[in-house]
């Protein structure tokens, strides 16, 4: 199955400022990011006939955002339930709608007050979702950093992954963020800083964990042909895949190897759709809710052997001047946490060549991924190509 390879494109990206308190509604954030993305593409809201987002009851729906921007009767919309696992499927589904001819110009957004209003998991207002919570919350096991720490420890036990491997990833991504004017955390950190940061849930320290951010990000999906006539260089959607895998559910329903994610199942399908392999990827924006998330994906997307993710990072391979620059914007750890959409937007910047001081020279193929399938046993990912 090749999917609509290279028939659709991302024609624009837009952001709000990232902060710890936006002081505005998620509806306002969504509108601001959508308008910025349309402006980036050289379009207006009058050109939009599709609106898509994902959310977990924490953000403005397309049915609010559309009318708020005078888009009263979109030809297509998507209000996808889910958090970081589904972020990339939203853009993938927009690409399918455009390729199928049911919409021509779709805006995809994610807008969250994830620090000031609705924190993920166990703190603030966000309630654990799903039937598994009953087996976890009585034991004080409620928050994503706890769950990811549990899987990170399993990886350490099985493969000898070390705290310094996690630390190197945090240090490297912070160095990238230092070159990103949008990033919330731009002061460089050292390995000593990492090791001295306080425990959150052993084996995770504070600097293993992503930021909690107020902000929004949006991208414009249209046909490849139309994108070529717009303001910015088009970035083609070569592949979009999403689905489940033999993931480890913390509720124990389908227990398999806790060190393997749904990405291992998805990756071959994704690469085949694009007609590329891991060796063709010039830059990777990988879901980094926690340091370990990147390490396991480096393995499951085939950039190194299983168990070698830690040493791969320690080798410097994921730095800006390494063989596979990863999270060039600083990622959720240092740029900001917009649940995946900002990873897609950064991949677009890299392929357009407008990433400034953090530009990977000659980047032509990018991989961007969603939460790899812990907690919710599904994931999604995109392969984008310079148009």
């Amino acid at each position, binding site marked *: 199955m090749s999917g609509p390879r290279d028939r659709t494109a991302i024609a624009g990206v837009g952001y709000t400022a990232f902060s710890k308190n936006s002081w505005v509604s998620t509806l306002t954030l969504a509108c601001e990011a959508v308008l910025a993305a349309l402006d980036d593409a050289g379009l207006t809201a009058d050109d939009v006939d599709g609106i898509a987002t994902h959310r977990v009851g924490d953000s403005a729906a397309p049915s609010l955002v559309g009318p708020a921007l005078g888009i009263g009767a979109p030809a297509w919309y998507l209000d996808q339930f889910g958090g970081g696992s589904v972020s990339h499927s939203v853009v993938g589904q927009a690409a399918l709608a455009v390729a199928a001819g049911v919409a021509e110009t779709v805006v995809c957004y994610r807008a969250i007050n994830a620090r000031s209003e609705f924190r993920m*998991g*166990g*703190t603030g207002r966000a309630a654990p979702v799903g*039937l*598994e*919570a*009953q*087996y*976890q*919350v*009585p*034991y*004080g*096991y*409620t*928050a994503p*950093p*706890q769950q990811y*720490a*549990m*899987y990170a*420890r*399993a990886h350490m*036990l099985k493969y000898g992954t070390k705290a310094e491997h996690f630390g190197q990833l945090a240090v490297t991504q912070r160095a990238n963020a230092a070159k990103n004017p949008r990033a919330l955390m731009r002061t460089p950190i050292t390995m000593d800083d990492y090791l001295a940061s*306080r*425990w*959150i*849930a*052993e*084996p*995770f320290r504070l600097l293993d964990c992503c930021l909690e951010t107020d902000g929004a990000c949006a991208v414009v999906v249209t046909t490849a042909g139309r994108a070529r006539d717009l303001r910015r260089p088009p970035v083609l959607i070569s592949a979009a895949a999403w689905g489940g895998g033999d993931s480890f559910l*913390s*509720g*124990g*329903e*389908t*227990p398999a190897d*806790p060190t393997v994610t749904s990405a291992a199942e998805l990756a071959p399908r994704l690469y085949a759709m694009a007609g590329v392999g891991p060796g063709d990827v010039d830059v990777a924006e990988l879901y980094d809710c926690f340091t370990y998330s990147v390490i396991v994906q480096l393995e499951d997307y085939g950039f190194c052997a299983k168990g070698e993710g830690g040493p791969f990072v320690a080798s410097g391979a994921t730095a800006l001047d390494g063989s596979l620059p990863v999270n060039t914007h600083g990622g959720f750890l240092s740029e900001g946490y917009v649940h995946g959409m900002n990873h897609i937007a950064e991949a677009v910047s890299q392929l357009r060549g407008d990433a400034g001081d953090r530009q990977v020279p000659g980047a032509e193929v990018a991989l961007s991924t969603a939460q790899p399938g812990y907690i919710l046993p599904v994931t999604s990912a995109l392969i984008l190509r310079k148009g």
Partner: protein
Amino acid sequence: MIKPVPDRDSAEWWERVARHEFVIQSCEGCGTLRFPARAYCPRCRGRDWSWRQVSPTGRILSWIVNHQPFLPDAPTPYTVVMVRLADAPGCVMVGNWRQSEEPVADQPVRAFYTYVDERLSLINWGPL
């Protein structure tokens, strides 16, 4: 402590835990053992099942030592373990570990019941 909210498939499991019975579901069609409680067997899709008493023992798969006060009334630090059941390696449970020493990888462990009230007990873990 936040009390569990059973669903319609799991309510009887929680009732049995309250009676300190260590049970999981066994598929009548193919014998697959499963947890948590669900109506259908994910392997043969059969709907006939019965409760099976299994050994309340397992091995440590992973653990965390939690320091961040995610819940207001849970004193930190506390340890949460993930245990693979001895009689049903496909079944994994999480629970607390209230021991002076940290667990170690693959350590044999046994379940302990923690009484909350007459309708609720929790399953916690310690060395075998």
